[in-house]
């Protein structure tokens, strides 16, 4: 018994706590009626806070295993998990107004929400394909459920594409997985790597099969990240969902997918060099396409969808170079992207909740109504655009320098990506310009919306502080990347 407790304490304490709080949430929905809908929010906040606190006690040196090696905890997974949990904490706060409108489904919403976070964390910790598949599928399911929480009439139509494509793509993942299993009769990452590292086997096995199965598996991840050929669902789905769920999909899912993608690429990329070029090409195409598409959008949610796509593509470009240095740069980029993205979503949610603003043309003249708010929003958008006094610049510098370091062959991709990133600057600039238009507006703000404003201020401050103290976080990222 004490061994089990020790294992829980060392390896999967945060997940364990989350499971407990999910059950508490379900039980609470049985005993409390709609009047106590706020209880679910507090349970979720408490659960996430407890999970964050419990990560301190996890054993990160040496690696801790659970479930006979199927579940891994080390500094790398802890980094991603803390990021996911912090996102989750803020997203619970941001969901407040949405829940107020749907009191009868509050417990339901937070149960699904917490289990999504739980499986996002499990996907990172998984050490074999089975655990990975189950976690990703459960994460996907929670996304489908959350998407269906909206009440607008065309929301179902818009989000249906995601459901269908997601189902197809996860079937492809399963196919790729079984092909790999057919080749080496293993599901564990390390053993698959060992198997392919044996040179004799590489001669006898057809390499094309390995490449094919790799494409099948990784395209699932790319689908969730919104990389070019799989990104058609992204803007429609975002437009159809309610705001906190868009924020959820562009942060929690992205963090989890990158945590997984780095592990998968570590297995595969050593054997197929040409695939690096393919991924780099996909990344560059995505940056170009999404940034060009975003500059003609009117709906703010669509702009944020394309922005998510661009940032995932930049991180993919950093990841397919694949060195310790580039992995740590991707982790830092993820960190800075998450802060800025949560801040931007908080601002957008504030505007929607307090004044029902959702198009760019509604934002006109906002500066003359809410100066502190617009200033903070501008800082966050500058961070997303990757300009100077914010964490976005350091992240961009770090990730591009990692690509530049990797050799001549990636330099053409780098220059295209850098020039395309100017287009994204313009895309964010459109939002800022709209807010500074000198136009008399009759926007009336609901003064009761506080939490999203508070999160926006916290995030905009954090982007500047992270820029100033970037060195510490970079050291943590490098340390975590080494542990991979």
């Amino acid at each position, binding site marked *: 018994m004490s061994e089990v407790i020790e294992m829980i304490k060392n390896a999967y304490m945060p997940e364990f706590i989350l499971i407990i709080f999910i059950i508490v949430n379900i039980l609470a929905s049985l005993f409390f009626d709609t009047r106590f809908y706020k209880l679910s929010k507090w349970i979720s906040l408490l659960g996430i806070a407890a999970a964050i606190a419990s990560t301190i006690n996890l054993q990160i040196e040496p690696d801790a295993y659970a479930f006979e090696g199927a579940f891994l905890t080390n500094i790398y997974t802890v980094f991603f998990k803390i990021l996911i949990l912090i996102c989750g904490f803020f997203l619970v706060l941001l969901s407040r107004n949405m829940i107020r409108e749907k009191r009868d489904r509050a417990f339901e919403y937070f149960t699904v929400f917490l289990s999504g976070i739980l499986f996002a964390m499990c996907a990172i910790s998984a050490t074999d394909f089975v655990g990975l598949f189950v976690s990703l599928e459960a994460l996907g399911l929670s996304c489908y459920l959350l998407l269906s929480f909206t009440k607008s009439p065309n929301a179902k139509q818009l989000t249906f594409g995601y459901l269908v494509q997601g189902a197809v793509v996860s079937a492809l993942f399963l196919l790729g997985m079984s092909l790999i299993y057919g080749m080496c009769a293993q599901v564990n990452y390390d053993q698959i790597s060992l198997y392919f590292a044996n040179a004799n086997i590489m001669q006898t096995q057809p390499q094309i099969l390995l490449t094919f199965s790799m494409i099948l598996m990784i395209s699932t991840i790319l689908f969730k990240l919104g990389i070019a050929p799989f990104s058609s669902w992204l803007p429609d789905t975002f437009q159809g969902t309610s705001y906190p769920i868009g924020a959820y999909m562009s942060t929690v899912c992205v963090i989890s997918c990158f945590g997984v993608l780095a592990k998968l690429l570590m297995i595969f990329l050593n054997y197929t060099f040409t695939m690096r070029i393919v991924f780099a090409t996909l990344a560059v195409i995505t940056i170009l396409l999404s940034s060009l598409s975003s500059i003609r959008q009117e709906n703010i949610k669509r702009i944020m969808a394309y922005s998510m796509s661009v940032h995932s593509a930049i991180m993919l470009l950093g990841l397919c170079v694949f060195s310790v240095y580039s992995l740590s740069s991707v982790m830092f980029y993820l960190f800075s992207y998450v802060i800025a993205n949560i801040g931007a979503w908080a601002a957008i949610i504030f505007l929607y909740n307090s004044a029902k603003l959702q198009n760019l043309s509604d934002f006109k003249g906002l500066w003359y109504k809410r100066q502190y708010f617009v200033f903070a929003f501008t800082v966050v958008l500058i961070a997303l655009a990757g300009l100077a006094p914010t964490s976005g610049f350091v992240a961009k510098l770090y990730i591009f320098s990692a690509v530049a370091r990797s050799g001549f062959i990636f330099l053409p991709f780098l220059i295209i990506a850098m020039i395309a990133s100017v287009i994204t600057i313009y895309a964010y600039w459109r939002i800022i310009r709209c807010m500074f238009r000198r136009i008399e507006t009759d926007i009336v703000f609901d003064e009761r919306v506080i939490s999203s404003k508070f999160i926006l201020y916290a995030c905009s401050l954090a982007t500047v502080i992270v820029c*100033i103290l970037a*060195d510490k976080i970079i050291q943590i990222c490098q340390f975590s990347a080494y542990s991979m």
Partner: protein
Amino acid sequence: MNFLSLIWLIFAPIIVALIIMFPKFPNHQVKIRRFAKWFASFHFVYALLFLAFFDTSLFGMSYEKELTFFGISWLKSLGITAKFALDGITLLMVVLTTFVVLITLFISKIHIRSKHKLYYSMVFLLEAAVLGIFCAKDMFMFFVFWELSLIPIYFLVSQWGNSEARRAAMKFTLASFVANMFLFFGMLILYYYNFAVSNVLTANIETLNMDSKIYPLWFQITVFVNFLIGFVIRTPFAFFHNWYPDIQSKSAAPVNILLSGLILNTGVYGMIRFNMQVFPEIFKIFAPVLMIWGIVNIVYGGALSIVQQGIKKMVAYANIATMGFVMVGLSCLNTTGFNGAVFCAIAASIVYSALFVIISSIEFRTKTTYITALGGIGQVMPKCMYLALIICFATIGMPFLIMFTPKLMVLTGAMFSNLDQQLMVKIVAFIGLGAIAVSAGYIMYFFYKVFCSVLLDQWKGIKDLSPQETAVLSALCAVIVYLGINPMNIIAVYQSVSSIILDVLQV
């Protein structure tokens, strides 16, 4: 000398900009203006103290300071630190920057009628960015300030310009961002391939170099060209100059002064710091090309200047032509030419700022900037006319005025340059001499048409310069005359620096 801190020099304007932008700061134009002027005066004096305590015999950087946050240097694990230092060239540029900002603030009162808070904070932000560009000892810190300077330019041009200014500013800003990406790309490559050679991860400008023995020539040339693209757009050299007359003709008068006085120098400085110091070998290869480019610049700028009808465009093209002299001077690869080029850049910003001050006074009184619409206003504005006469003579390069020495030094340098293409060098020097005569033509045409011809009826009622404008213009003329008589005062400050740079470069 401990009270002289570069950190304060650079970041004080940013703090002041934030104070002005702060919503609690009184939104009263007189208070804002007074506060801004007082601060700019103190800042100018503070910058002068750096000059006063500067040791001209010193080789290398002085006043070095590092910006740390709670004892942590910025991005130390990537080899990037927020270090600032000065040498002779940058010191002069820093003093010049604070001076130009000061005179701009004195001119701003009559031209800026709205959004005072935004205007004054943006001026200070621009000042801080330009100072940061000059003082940054670290390549990426340089880039941060380089990009930061674009944002105030956008606001300054778009908010107070004429109806087409917004579009022009957006075009310029986006084009500059693209050019900056080339610059950034070059920096990243330089950063890593320097690491590969020396095994030290650093972005310190002094220690960077690209070993010519290890990397193929084409690769080094690619990086060099990336840097060059970034800098020639800022210093509008021919074929990349389109934005400059465009923006100058559309923006408000004080912004003209800022653009001509602050922005062009940053490009020249970047070329000296990176293209000459980091890639001396490649610069030697490119020197003949750059010299021809410079002379093309002189001829092209002059030719376009003649045909302009708007004064602002004419002066902007004349400015581009003068920047051609800088390029020729740099590519001579000898001390005379180099010293002349740096002096020329400094003189150009003083002289063209002064010309834009004159234009601002005329524009304020007549509401027009077309040469044909003006005429004979010297009769009603005698003070303005006499001061303008000194400035116009200085622009042409009259002896005992500021522009004479640099042009002479550049052409002498070109004449005695040791480049292999001796015939070309001599031809360039002669064309340069001819171009001075042409510049005399268009500047004097402007002066004659505006001040001396028949006085038009509608201008009979306009008033002469106000005491404030007279003071600003007299100060500028005093600088022009003083540095024209004592050019060695300027050159002595950066002579030791130029000897370091040219030791490597001399053919």
